[in-house]
């Protein structure tokens, strides 16, 4: 289990992290969300020991993280990083050995991981000759080759096509099933919502929401009410107490309900306006929640 406790970091006058705390459990996928510059990459770099926190601590399995722990973590940096002229196999072996694996084990693990992510046949080619998609896979192999107990992935899905996204998601789920803790950052919130067990939303170096995805969706932001009414005038929902119109699609309006607003009163108003075809109440999606908490 990875625990970040009250991390703070300044770069000159810029506050990058301001008392950030979060927990990533073993066998869980943890989505890490925030605007550009919110502090995601800085947080990940501190976990990997690439930056030093001004205050706060990183704990792994209940004790302060050591350099030895960190060598075993799998890391995929945002801007990627491979030696262009080295073959895929040679560099995965190299990274495995830097992580502390003996030569024979590193060779075997590298060959097997490259096979399992589908670039085994091209593993003898210099990386610069691989397609971008295959380079991305090679990058993932670099993070996975040591069978790490913690995977830290900075924007792993950026630049992938839908098939690539599914393939990577499947790989992550396999890892998690074997007990790996995964934390990944992404701007694709639907993806985060679909894949993650837990999510942490940060803004300006502070956590604004954190926990199980369903709990976070339920705890923050206004619930959504989607009501489709046949034959109603457009403005039927305007002026209802505690209700805001946030979207409209044909007959259907999307309403944000403030806390304590009466959904039954909305239903009555809808029936007065016309024939109610559907009436559905749900927690805000992660995207909606994110917009709300980050813009407030």
């Amino acid at each position: 289990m990875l625990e970040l406790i009250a991390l703070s970091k300044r770069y000159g006058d810029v506050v990058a992290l301001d008392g950030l705390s979060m927990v990533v459990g073993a066998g869980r996928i943890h989505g890490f969300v925030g605007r550009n510059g919110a502090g995601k990459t800085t947080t990940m770099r501190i976990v990997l020991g690439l930056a030093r926190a001004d205050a706060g601590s990183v704990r792994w399995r209940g004790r302060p993280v050591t350099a030895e722990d960190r060598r075993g973590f799998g890391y995929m940096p945002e801007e990627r990083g491979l030696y262009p002229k080295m073959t895929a196999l040679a560099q995965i072996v190299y990274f495995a050995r830097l992580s502390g694996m003996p030569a024979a084990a590193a060779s075997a693990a590298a060959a097997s991981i490259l096979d399992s992510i589908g670039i085994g046949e091209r593993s003898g080619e210099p990386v610069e000759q691989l397609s971008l998609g295959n380079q991305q896979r090679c990058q993932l192999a670099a993070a996975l080759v040591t069978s790490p107990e913690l995977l830290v992935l900075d924007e792993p899905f950026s630049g992938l096509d839908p098939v690539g996204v599914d393939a990577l998601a499947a790989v992550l789920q396999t890892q998690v099933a074997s007990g790996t803790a995964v934390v990944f950052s992404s701007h694709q919130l639907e993806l985060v919502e679909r894949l993650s067990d837990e999510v942490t939303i940060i803004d300006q170096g502070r956590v604004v929401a954190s926990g199980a995805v369903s709990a976070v969706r339920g705890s923050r932001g206004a619930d959504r009410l989607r009501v489709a009414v046949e034959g109603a005038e457009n403005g039927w929902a305007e002026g209802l107490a505690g209700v805001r119109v946030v979207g409209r699609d044909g007959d259907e309006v999307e309403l944000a309900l403030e806390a304590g607003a009466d959904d039954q009163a909305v239903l009555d108003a809808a029936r007065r306006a016309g024939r109610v075809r559907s009436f559905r109440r749900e927690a805000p999606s992660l995207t909606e929640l994110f917009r709300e908490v980050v813009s407030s």
Partner: protein
Amino acid sequence: MIRLVAGREVRERIRSKAFRISTGVTLLFILAVAILPGVLSDDGPTKYDVGVFGDRADRLAERLPEVALVGDDVEVRVRRLADAGEGERLVRSGKLDAALGDGRVVVKEELGNRLGFVVDEANRQVAAAAVLAGAGVGGEAAARILAPQPLEVRALDPKSDEEVARQGLVFIGTILLYGQLLGFGYWVASGVVEEKVSRVVEILLAKAPPAQLLAGKVIGIGAVGLIQLLVFLVIGLATAAAFGTVDLPADSLPIAAQVVGWFVLGFAFYSCLFAVGGALASRVEELQSTTTPLTFLAMGSLFAAINSGTDPSGPIARVATFIPFSAPMVLPIRVAAGEVGLVTVVVSVAIVVVSIVAVMALAARVYATGALHLRGQLKLRSALRQEAAGVTVP
């Protein structure tokens, strides 16, 4: 960890095209130096064809070959001419190098120093003989005046062939040393910046402390440079010995060993500074400006070394012996010239070693800050300030 990093450098560098090309080109150069002097060897004295005409043609024809014997490896073949006109024609057509008579000499473009000495001296002797004859001096007296016994040369400190050969060898060794220091030093700088450009450095730093990554890189690239230098020296000396074209001094091997030893020290010193140049740049193009001061210092050191070759006890040589930039190139030359004793060598080595420790510390600090500085060129002062403020890889 350091061995792993160094091992990767050795494997990848030896595989690289740049390494193969530089090895090939330098080997060609070395083979040329070792073999060509034999092929282009001395084919006897320089020959000149000189025509003579006019009143004193006979006497000039007699003196010219005699005077040439005194000259520096010159032979003159004389031809009688009818008149100045024939001389001009033959000089113009290239059949004669010069036509001499009636108090003038005709040449095509210019009268060089060597031929100039011969015709001047012959002309002077003929003219002087005429004056002496007019004054009634002739026979043996005139001959002694015109061609006195040549001076006997007594050198107090004669330069033996052995010494000349030794200086030649150590000079070539120094040129090689300079090439290796600069070439492989630059590889350290470009290796550092290439890892920044490809962003690999971020993965590496998550696995290993910056000082170890840097040490591995320097040791790996240095090992390749050392192996290459040994290959150059062995092949060069073996070729020269086999063809017998170059006079090798008896102490060739100690001289070569000295060059190798100075490569190790010099590379440790220069490569750390090149690593600083690499850490300050964030693109390969910026290496130009971050390593220029270093390149100039290395070139200045080579000039100091060349100067030490001609004047091994001069002020430049004596000062350069104690400057870490120039000591590796200057000392082998001064030692070969027998100019410095053991104490000077020990002091000079000590200065270089202390400097190495200092630049290693500097390089480790700047690298820790610069390695993750991926955008824009960093200033040395700002890198050290940030390092002090903790903006660095722990």
